[in-house]
């Protein structure tokens, strides 16, 4: 019996050989550019262009050159420029994440647990906003921010992104697991509606909050078109804008460029490896 099962198992594994080969090829292609980015960050531009694919000894040099480039764009001294821009990116992404998950979860709570015909219809209207391309609202929003004197401030960065139909839908769908009965019980105990949100809904929905926070942070950190429009002052720049500038000159130092890409990718890579499950849940959002 056990013999037979063993045979069976090895037969199954043999049948899977093409799958393994296919997966190994796909995984190699998926991972190699990231691996290469890491190695290139430690090589000088000559070695990079000669096709070196192993770690080199120029990491410190590239790092200092990157600090210098960042300082130059900001007119800073002493290597503080890079950290200022990193700080900008963290600030914008952090504020956007906190406000976005708060506002959208509140809306998801309202739409699902207080739902009636009118609210359902309104929800349908809000979903239409998903079809609006970013470039279509770019100019009016830019003018709006400019007339409100918000350019180069965190408000201009976050305002168009802190309420999205996707996030509201995600919270709404996941709210279906939230039992309405306990709300009735809480009401009898004299708990106010807003207290129910803070004391009951938020703790129960912890995992949805985690997924929503991860995906919102990623999106905010990676944003490029909108920040380029409204954060044009170098001192308000984000990491994405910094590295895009590094590649802009006539001669590109690939070692320094990849060092910049590395710095830009560290936060998202850490999130990816530590919170991969939440990230995947955040992407699929309301697909259930």
């Amino acid at each position, binding site marked *: 019996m056990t013999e037979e099962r063993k045979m069976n198992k090895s037969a199954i594994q043999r049948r899977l050989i093409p799958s393994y080969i296919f997966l190994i090829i796909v995984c190699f292609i998926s991972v190699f550019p*990231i691996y290469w980015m890491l190695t290139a960050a430690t090589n000088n531009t000559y070695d990079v262009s000669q096709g070196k694919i192993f770690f080199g000894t120029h990491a410190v040099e590239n790092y200092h050159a990157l600090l210098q480039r960042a300082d130059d764009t900001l007119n800073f001294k002493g290597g503080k420029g890079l950290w200022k821009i990193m700080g900008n990116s963290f600030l914008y992404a952090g504020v956007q994440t906190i406000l976005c998950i708060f506002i959208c979860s509140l809306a998801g709570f309202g739409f699902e647990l207080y739902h009636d015909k009118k609210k359902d219809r309104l929800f349908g209207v809000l979903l239409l906003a998903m079809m609006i391309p970013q470039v279509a609202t770019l100019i009016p929003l830019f003018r709006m921010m400019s007339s409100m004197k918000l350019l180069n401030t965190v408000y201009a960065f976050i305002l168009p992104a802190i309420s999205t139909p996707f996030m509201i839908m995600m919270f709404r769908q996941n709210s279906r697991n939230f039992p309405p009965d306990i709300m009735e019980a809480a009401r009898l105990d004299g708990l106010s*509606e807003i207290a129910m949100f803070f004391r009951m809904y938020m703790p129960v929905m912890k995992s949805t909050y985690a997924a929503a926070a991860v995906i919102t942070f990623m999106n905010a950190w990676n944003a490029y078109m909108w920040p380029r429009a409204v954060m044009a002052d170098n001192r308000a720049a984000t990491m994405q804008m910094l590295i*895009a500038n590094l590649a802009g000159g006539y001669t590109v130092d690939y070692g320094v460029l990849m060092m910049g890409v590395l710095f830009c990718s560290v936060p998202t890579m850490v999130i990816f490896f530590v919170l991969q499950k939440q990230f995947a849940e955040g*992407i*699929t959002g309301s697909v259930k």
Partner: protein
Amino acid sequence: MNKKSGVTRKQEVWGWAFLAPATILIFVMSFWPMIQAFIMSLKKGPAANMVWQEPLFKNYTRILQDKTFLTSMGNTFLYLIIEVPIMLILAILLAQILNNRDLKFRGGFRTMVFMPCAVSLVSYALIFKSLFATQGLINSALMHLHIISENINWLGTTGTARAVIIMGLIWRWTGYNMVFYLAGLQNIEYSVYEAAKIDGANGWKTFWGITVPLLRPVIVMTFIMSINGTLQLFDESVNLTNGGPSNSTITMSHYIWNQSLGVGVAKFGYASALAFVVFIMVGILAFINLKVGDTRD
């Protein structure tokens, strides 16, 4: 009775209060700008002092003669038609393989396929730009393998530059879409697959006979998302090729950017007309997709 309706009234008010901030923001930050974009698309002149276009729809008729925009539209659709099907089929295939419980190291494989999502669009565009530089790794590897005898100017030639953008897109988004399919497959009873195996169905048959039909709603959704995303391509066009050589790889969003907030004189009126055309395209394609996907049998 009286008391009860009082409570519901209070709840009613709270319900609206909860969804008010998000709703107001979407109206002010999405719908209102969309209306403004349409109004602006009927105007001309400098941003501070725009006047009605004469005739009113001149910005729109002008689009038909705008060779660069037509090129950008062609490029965007080229990327769409080639990239989206390859990427989605690859993603479904990977999801089916990774859903097989007999497979070893599933978690590791999944993480690696998913990994490109850990880098930003700008970052990966710059990585690909470096890899495909004339003095880059791809050329030196091909030289070492004696496949080519002199360096190819990948990003300086229209055809290859477009191909690099498409490869980049497939690289960045296949794992992303696979995540949707894996989530979708988890809702399918695994016993369906085991029954198919006992019936002697091979991988190919299971793929078309079980996976694709059962995943149809998810496929429709990823299709809409991919179309939406491709029509809005911007970061890759700007950072990988900068639209070049001579605007032959530029995308619609990139061109609109150049017309409004990019280099040179800002043509807000004309750029708004272009943007409105993109909006219509996204709407039409999404609508067609929903209709096609909705044929329940």
